[in-house]
């Protein structure tokens, strides 16, 4: 991982914190898009063609299509989590510490750092599910993309599974259904 890629990863982690504290949907979606862009840069900058294609596909789906769809739907089910912003931030710091401690068991080096950042983003994204589920899953998917970029020689099936965000897409679809709730509108 080059220095630029490392910088992108660190900025993406920073955005995860920002996302955790952000309550407005439009701003959160913007943060998600920027995070996806940073993650795609960190992955694509490693220079191999399959990874660059993977990063492009992942950014297209996870960074453009789904966030824009979410913005258009306007997920109204943003629940306030049970605890306030300070507690949330504290919990996030603890999660990052756990992620770093876990990743350090794999040894040291740039790959370990990338995995630590990726795991932190995943865990913070999963923490964000307590608010807007779809946004949290999108952010977690970004972390997985970063992790997949840090592991060399992954078979194409794995890259495809990580690049296509099926679970966030499902969540967005559910948000859409919640808005219209028209599954049973047809006469029986």
């Amino acid at each position: 991982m080059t220095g630029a890629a490392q910088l992108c990863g660190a900025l993406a982690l920073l955005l995860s914190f920002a996302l955790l504290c952000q309550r407005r949907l439009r701003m959160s979606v913007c943060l998600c898009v920027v995070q996806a862009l940073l993650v795609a840069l960190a992955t694509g900058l490693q220079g191999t063609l399959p990874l660059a294609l993977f990063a492009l596909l992942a950014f297209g789906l996870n960074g453009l299509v789904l966030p824009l769809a979410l913005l258009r739907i306007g997920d109204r089910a943003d629940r306030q989590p049970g605890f306030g912003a300070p507690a949330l931030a504290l919990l996030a710091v603890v999660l990052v510490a756990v992620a770093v401690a876990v990743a350090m068991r794999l040894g040291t080096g740039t790959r370990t750092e990338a995995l630590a950042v990726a795991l932190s983003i995943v865990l913070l994204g999963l923490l964000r599910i307590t608010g807007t589920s779809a946004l949290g899953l999108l952010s977690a998917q970004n972390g997985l993309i970063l992790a997949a970029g840090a592991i060399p020689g992954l078979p194409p099936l794995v890259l495809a599974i990580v690049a296509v965000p099926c679970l966030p897409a499902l969540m967005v679809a559910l948000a859409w259904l919640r808005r219209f709730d028209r599954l049973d509108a047809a006469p029986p």
Partner: protein
Amino acid sequence: MNLALPILVVVLPFASAAVLGVVASWRIGSLINAASASLLFLLTCLLPGAASTVLHVGPVQAHLALLTSFVAMTTGWFGVRHVRAALDARLTGRRRVRIQQVTFQVLVGATILALLSDSPALTWLALAIAVAAATSASLTPRGAAPDAASRLLALCAVGLMLALFGTLLLYLAAEPNPASLRWSALLLAGSPRNAALELACIFLLLGYGTLAGLVPLHGWLPEAAAGPAPNAIILTSLLVNAPLLVILRLRGCMPADLLLALGLASLLLAACCMSSRLDPRRAVAFAGMALVGLIVFAFGLATPLHALLLMTLLPLARAAALQCEDLSPTRASAWTSTACVLALAALPPFALFLIAGATVDHSAWLLPPLGIGVLLTSWALIARLPLSVGPAARRDSGNETVALAPIWLQLAMLLILAVAMPEPVLDWFRDMTISIR
């Protein structure tokens, strides 16, 4: 033929789902559903000994696929009757019935794919498909439904995300040649353990444990059990076996204490959640969760034979209990549902009886909490007797024996496996145990 058979077994349910998506009539649809599940059972009977390049059909996989297709078959028969009763009672619409039939087949196919697939990534994909199908099936008409579905999806998605991270770490552990990673090779080689593999196992345990209904994120299980009946049966009884198989394969690399703790915590929590005010389906779901806790506990004790026996008994008992739901209130059906509840209540003490010796060998202090959990679970089930009959079931229909036959078939299998245990069956289980060692 032999090479194509496993692929045919996986493809058949998905093909039936595609056909069901086009068929407009619910009558023909439910018949197709039952016929396809029966055909699937016949095909899986030929499965032991089949070989495949993409899929791996070991003794355990063949056994669990056979079990899956058997319960899918009885549930398909149950579905024919259930759909008619639900439509008569105006509990559902025709369009919803069609969605349920399609998702039923997708769930069966995804479960079998997850069991047979040899690649960790494919297993993950199959389970993600199953969760997607379960989510779309649990969208019940109007009102609070999307919330229930999104709760189910949110919890399962957390599990799947952790499992995907674990899968990536698994590929990292297979460092020199990640593309050749296979469950079967991972199992047999006794490959050198490294930090990445152990870490991957912990993530896979937490992630797939969620899908099996283990403790930290088990909240989706009652939501799933409250969904449409045939899908709930597949989801809560059969799908659980696929993540359990992953944990079984990797149990050597997982910390035994973590397995024991998660199993015990699931058992105790499920026992505490089973109050008498729960509706019957949720109670069955929690009883199953207690048993999954016992199974994982058995993994921790390294007694795979007992764990496999329990993994076989659990779906049979759970499915039989859930299939009792819309029987008409006759004497025979009252006896049947009583027998089902008793069978489900007898399983935890039976499991305790199986693993008590190994538990004492490990640490005698584990026995009291285990006993308390088992007693609470069984008592909570027995206290529900006699069962009241559900709202969908007031209609008295003629062919009662036809409806009761599959349930008694499952109860008979349960009895044979748990009590009689003939020699060939025992050999069959021993073969499985050897193949996963």
